[in-house]
């Protein structure tokens, strides 16, 4: 469990709709170059959160789990791209640096499920989201910022959730 501090926000989600809505709020402020890392067990709501994020960002495409295909690309009317990577199968990080994450980061927001599996190749600055199963419906979501850019992104996000903007 990460320790909560001023660079973290915690929510208890009461269901998939709630998780999706939180994602939408985050998605509306995402920009090219943003890196969002998700960590959480099977069924903790990672793909649901990304569905919200992509919707908030303005995706025209349906968001599905990219586990098998590894990477999904979603499009927006203005030509923007949203990259959805899934590191679930990447047990062996030996060659993970070959993933060439920089290319994806340059051309849109990049969201990574199972990010803890490829920690060694992630940029130092990012938003880290930890999802935990509380019970059948409820999920504990903790958003933590690493680096000054993500601290301000998190503040913006906090304002959008709790008001004050």
């Amino acid at each position, binding site marked *: 469990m990460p320790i909560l501090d001023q660079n973290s926000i915690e929510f208890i989600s009461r269901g998939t709709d709630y998780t999706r809505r939180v994602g939408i709020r985050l998605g509306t402020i995402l920009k090219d170059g943003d890196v969002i890392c998700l960590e959480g067990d099977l069924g903790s709501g990672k793909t649901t959160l990304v569905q919200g994020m992509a919707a908030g960002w303005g995706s025209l495409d349906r968001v599905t*789990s990219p586990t098998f295909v*590894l990477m999904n690309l979603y499009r927006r009317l203005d030509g923007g791209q949203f990259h959805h990577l899934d590191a679930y199968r990447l047990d062996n990080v030996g060659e993970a640096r070959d993933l060439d994450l920089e290319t994806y980061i340059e051309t849109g927001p990049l969201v990574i499920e199972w990010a803890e599996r490829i920690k060694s190749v992630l940029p130092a600055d990012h938003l880290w989201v930890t999802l935990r199963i509380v019970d059948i419906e409820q999920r504990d979501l903790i958003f933590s910022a690493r680096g000054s850019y993500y601290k301000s992104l998190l503040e913006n996000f906090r304002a959008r959730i709790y008001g004050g903007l």
Partner: protein
Amino acid sequence: MTDTTQQPISIDGPIRLLGIETSCDETAASVVESGRKIISNIVASQVDIHAQYGGIYPEVASRQHIITIYPIVEQALQDAHITLDDVDGIAVTRGPGLSGSLVVGLNTAKGLALANQLPIIGINHLEAHIYSAWLDHPERRTEDDPKFPLLALIVSGGHTELALMTDHLEYQRLGGTLDDAAGEAFDKIARLLGLDYPGGPAIQQAAIEGNERAFSFPRAWLENTWDFSFSGLKTAVLREVRRLEETNLPLPINDIAASFQAAVVDVLVNKTLFAAREFKAKDILVAGGVSANQLLRTRFEENDEFTVHIPPLVLCTDNAAMISGAGYYRFIAGQRDELDIDALPNWPLSEI
């Protein structure tokens, strides 16, 4: 840019296309005559390579494609006892898939097309799965071809799509998965149960010894839509496994596998049959890697309302014969692509 439309084409004889497929973890090439007769069909699977990573690995995949693609094409031509002089065009997968992998196939096709003055036809991988049902296998006659309107279910590791086909090359996408693809659910549950990759065959094998009524896992019917969802089922199985682990008794892997498989198959079969009735389809077509699942095949074949077309096992998983197959119908419809066509990693059936 080469104007490929001016190439003389013999319409009288059979049309022979070289097909190339590299969208995911198979490197494949094939020669097919007139969308029907498989002359050669070579598939180099990377499953062994990816098994050590527990799944496909993108850079490894594209590197392997680069190494194997030319020998595979060469072998497909050799097995067909022809050279590129004897083919009328090259059909190649444009998407959906991993961009790095797609590019390898596309560049190979472009190089061969340019060097041999052949037209190139970019093919949608999902459409190609559908056309695997037209490829001949010894026991089928032409009059047994799928009939329109046709309800098509494409189920694989990466896709779960339901579409109505009103004619050749005419699709109306009805729905698809909202979260996990059916094959992906098999892989994830297999991993959870400590079974091998790929998960489909492993679950099927474990289920043989299991009781499919041992656990009552949820079926997401998503009424009033033609969509699917397997994420809730996945979570339910996970919860059951965690609960059982706390008892310290050995995990009833066979029963869990059987009950899980039954839940997936139930939804796939019943929703497809329901859609076929609703849209007054004549036939049903099931394709993609998960269509190799024996329970799914049996359950579809047991229905007495619709003729169900399911390709033979070798054509269920990714292959290039289906690319040539779909390529033929595109070719006779006049499609010729430019040599600068891009890979389309995201190319839904609704945008063909």
